[in-house]
């Protein structure tokens, strides 16, 4: 047997064009809403216009009599069968949570909540009948403002007796990972206090959510536009009391998620329950307005922050007091989102003391949950804004203050004050490269010049030297944080007799390019052509085990499961190769897709072995005729990508309009499988973070009505709003996985928001402005300028030296009143020990 193939050029690291493009650019896609089955019925939802009300009566008769309508269901009609929607992350033992029926039974708690479901023979007939359902409401006091809700007053859920769902604390002194932050506050030379608001956002994936359920046959099949087919299957089985084996969940082509499809939705449960009741296939597809109204939202936190430092600008302590708006209910991971940020406020800096306290609050608004970054963008924003404030206070360049405090590259691995061990990184290298690409010094000179000549258009430069923890996640860590599941990932490899290779992944891509990236990994590992690898995922009958795609986990966890499965294939093939080559197992080496007898030209290819095993005519004794392998990978640590992002904005002081002039980022995500895909992830991530800084905000009025319920009002940016970004990478391989890779899916979003806001504030600093609330709209910027002394800004001084402009002084006499007791009865101590 001889193999004549040359060893392929390494696939990993190559900018392969994507396999998945072929169907997407030609319209040969299978989105859930494309699925149509014989006799399929269509669902439409009747939603509450009230944010908080008791349902006194529902008259469904006119709707039932409407042409084409088959049935109308209220919450009472579905009864126990609809169960209560799951929350998988009870962050404390005493966490309070209301029941969450998919169709409200007697009370509505946010505007948009489902109160009845129409089933009809066509989608238009179902929608027509929605208007005919007559619901009488008895209005209840509406709780909209989380800060007010935290103090008591009207209750979102009177039966809970409080608006507080849970309080969660991490304190470095109690955890043994650092000192007591109250000591740092008492002894501080410099004390900076700020309160920042993380406005409420909407994930706004382009494909509205859709679900189709076919209850015929032995197994009920549910197609859903979801990121999490495996988790959804388990949760639906538990919620609806169906055997897992009788349920098959398929995520076909899914049009974006960003955390917004990391959910078990009321609509999924209702479609399942109704289709099983009627014995007919049913479909529900939301409108965009419904998606914005009732698909979960993200962010929505108020951050009270205290940073202490020495006169030289060395940080000594950080205290975070967070209010997080849950909305009316706890979704799948709602309460845990702020906790994902808890370990990231200290970021890349060597804080000796740290305390994080989060209070989760109920309000009569749609519930919040994961949105790209989930907790980490909030934390990164807070610390990166504070570091700019510290730079101003100390009178040095914002990059200089960061360098004085960050972990040096020779100090890795480094255990942080939050108890995480950062494996690798090089903040100096990324920053040096970013400054060079950006033309930092020239832009600073232009900034000075524009200030001196009192240009109505001012230049601002913003910095963000971020890191994040991603690759969710080591299962034992999730256990320590009271999360309801593990963080492992699964993959299988099937060696087909044709010599082709099937990879079955537990991850569930929806735009990330897994088909391409997993093919590259397997092509290298098994020495087979890239084209010969097929990747299957997103169907629980094909991929039986998996924990799906979110938290920048697919490559660092799922990719490693693929590697582990490939390595098992090689080990299974080895004794068979030895048998066929009549050689000793120990004399074989595997490389470039073939087993070679050392020192000879005798070899056999892995594809030939797959065929030999399929025929099974000549197997060694006691060896099973299969090369197929499964692997489950549980990471030992998170991955910690980092980078330096620099943003220059031009702010028109007459109109308040902000334009992005330059944006440069140098990210370090370790080794890269496909640079083309990575760059795309960075671009898209940047824009979502920039959009938080400048444009997007989900707004509720005082009555709890969402006033940004369409793309007319919710400002998802277009191409015309943006510029080309300048991106580059440095490479500090992860030491905690064999590929050396780190996550990239959320990095851009986490990093960019503070870079932009720092730039806006930097442009206006000399007017005495030290914050603009997000989004930094023309109106907000203009209003802030109107409140300043008009000519104050034209002093022409440099940003870093304008100490007189800092609003919050560092008078140590304030410290006494800032100190607070640290005892929190009933609070929960979190940690990674």
């Amino acid at each position, binding site marked *: 047997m001889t193999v004549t193939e040359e060893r392929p050029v390494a696939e990993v690291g190559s900018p392969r*064009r*994507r396999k*998945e*493009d*072929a*169907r*997407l*650019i*030609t*319209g*040969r*896609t299978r*989105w859930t*809403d*494309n699925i*149509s089955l014989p006799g399929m019925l269509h669902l439409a939802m009747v939603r509450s216009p009230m944010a908080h009300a008791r349902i006194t009566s529902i008259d469904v008769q006119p709707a039932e009599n409407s042409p084409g309508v088959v049935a109308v269901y209220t919450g009472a009609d579905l009864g126990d069968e609809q169960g209560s929607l799951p929350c998988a992350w009870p962050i404390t033992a005493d966490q309070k949570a209301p029941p969450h029926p998919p169709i409200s039974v007697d009370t509505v708690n946010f505007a948009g909540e489902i109160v009845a479901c129409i089933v009809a023979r066509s989608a*238009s007939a179902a929608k027509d009948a929605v208007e005919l359902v007559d619901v009488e409401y008895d209005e209840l006091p509406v709780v909209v403002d989380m800060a007010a809700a935290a103090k008591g007053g009207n209750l979102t859920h009177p039966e809970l007796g409080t608006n507080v769902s849970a309080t969660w604390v991490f304190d470095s002194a109690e955890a043994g990972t650092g000192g007591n932050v109250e000591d740092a506050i008492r002894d501080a030379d410099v004390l900076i206090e700020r309160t920042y608001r993380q406005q409420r956002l909407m994930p*706004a*994936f*382009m*494909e*509205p959510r859709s679900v189709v359920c076919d209850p015929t046959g032995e197994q009920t099949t549910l197609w859903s536009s979801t990121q999490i087919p495996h988790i959804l299957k388990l949760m639906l089985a538990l919620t609806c009391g169906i055997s897992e084996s009788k349920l098959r969940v398929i995520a076909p*082509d*899914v*049009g*974006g998620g*960003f955390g917004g499809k990391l959910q078990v939705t009321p609509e999924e449960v209702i479609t399942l329950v109704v289709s099983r009741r009627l014995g007919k296939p049913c479909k529900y597809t939301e*409108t*965009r*307005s419904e998606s914005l109204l009732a698909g979960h939202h993200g962010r929505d936190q108020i951050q009270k922050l205290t940073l202490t430092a020495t006169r030289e600008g060395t940080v000594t302590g950080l205290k975070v007091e967070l209010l997080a708006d849950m909305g009316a209910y706890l979704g799948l991971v709602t309460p845990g989102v702020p906790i994902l940020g808890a370990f990231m406020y200290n970021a890349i800096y060597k804080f000796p003391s740290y305390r994080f306290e989060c209070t989760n609050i109920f309000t009569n608004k749609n519930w919040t949950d994961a949105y790209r970054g989930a907790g980490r963008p909030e934390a990164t924003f807070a610390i990166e804004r504070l570091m700019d404030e510290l730079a101003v206070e100390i009178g040095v360049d914002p990059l200089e203050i960061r360098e004085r405090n960050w972990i040096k590259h020779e100090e890795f691995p480094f255990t942080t004050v939050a108890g995480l061990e950062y494996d690798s990184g090089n903040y100096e290298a990324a920053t040096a490269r970013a400054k060079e690409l950006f033309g930092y010094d020239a832009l600073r000179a232009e900034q000075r010049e524009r200030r001196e000549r009192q240009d109505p258009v001012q230049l601002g430069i913003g910095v963000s030297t971020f890191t994040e923890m991603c690759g969710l996640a080591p299962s034992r860590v999730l256990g320590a944080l009271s999360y309801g599941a593990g963080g492992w990932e699964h993959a299988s490899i099937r060696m087909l007799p044709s010599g082709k290779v099937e990879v079955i992944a537990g991850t569930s891509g*929806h*735009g*990330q*390019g897994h088909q391409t990236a997993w093919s590259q990994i397997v092509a290298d590992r098994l020495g087979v052509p890239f084209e010969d690898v097929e990747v299957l995922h997103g169907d629980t009958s094909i991929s039986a085990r998996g924990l799906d795609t979110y938290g920048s986990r697919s490559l660092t966890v799922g990719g490693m499961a693929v590697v582990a499965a490939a390595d098992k294939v090689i080990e299974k093939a080895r004794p068979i190769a030895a048998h066929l080559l009549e050689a000793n197992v120990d004399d074989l080496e595997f490389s470039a897709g073939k087993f070679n007898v050392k020192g000879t030209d005798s070899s056999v290819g892995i594809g030939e072995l797959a065929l030999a095993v399929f025929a099974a005519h000549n197997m060694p004794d006691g060896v099973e005729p299969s090369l197929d392998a499964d692997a489950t990978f549980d990471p030992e640590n998170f991955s910690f990508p980092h980078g330096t992002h620099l943003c220059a904005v031009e702010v028109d002081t007459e109109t308040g309009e902000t334009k992005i002039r330059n944006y440069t980022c140098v990210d370090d995500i370790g080794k890269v499988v496909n640079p*083309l*895909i990575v*760059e*795309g*992830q960075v*671009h*898209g*991530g*940047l*824009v*979502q973070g920039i959009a938080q800084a400048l444009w997007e905000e989900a707004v509720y009025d005082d009555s709890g009505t969402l006033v940004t319920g*369409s*793309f*007319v009002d919710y400002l*998802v940016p*277009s*191409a*015309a709003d*943006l510029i*080309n*970004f300048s991106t580059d990478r440095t490479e500090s391989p992860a030491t905690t996985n064999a590929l050396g890779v780190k996550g990239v899916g959320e990095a851009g979003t986490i990093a960019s928001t503070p870079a932009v806001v720092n730039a806006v504030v930097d442009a206006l600093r000399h007017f005495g402005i030290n914050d603009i609330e997000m989004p930094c709209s023309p109106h907000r910027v203009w209003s802030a300028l109107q409140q300043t002394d008009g000519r104050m800004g034209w002093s022409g001084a440099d940003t870093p030296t304008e100490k007189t402009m800092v609003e919050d002084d560092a008078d140590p006499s304030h410290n006494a009143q800032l100190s607070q007791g640290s005892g929190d009865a009933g609070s929960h101590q979190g940690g990674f020990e």
Partner: protein
Amino acid sequence: MTRISIQVDGVQYSDDVEPRTLLVHYLREQVGKTGTVIGCDTSNCGSCTVHLDDTSVKSCTVLAVQADGHEVTTIEGLAAGTDGELHPMQQAFHENHALQCGYCTPGMIMQSIDLLRDNPSPTEQEVRDGLEGNLCRCTGYQNIVKAVLSVSEETRLKVGTAGGTL
């Protein structure tokens, strides 16, 4: 019900539609052109963009009856057959990694073709402005703009030999 007669991707169809039926619903549900998708209900996102007599329209803002007697081209009609050669714009989107989840892609490609028909040699800013009515949540637009510019340059180079490929 109203009887309409429309040519879609080169095939003539005669169908009865409710007068209120939107073109996009007719295309998806009656003709089966599910490559054209719906992303919003306010004509902001452009996901449903098709060509009506060689001009791009958002098919959610056109009634099916208004397309009576006209020709519609969808993303599915761009390449010549299922194994046919890709349209240069489709090829450019692939080469430049101008799509991730792919949901906005059909509309984005149809609009990009129309943009270059109107302005065969646009500047970067003209491309950005020309795509303002099409939203993408994945790519940050950078590679989409790059893809469109790459086609326009190629078109310029080919003028006189393979002009009119768009």
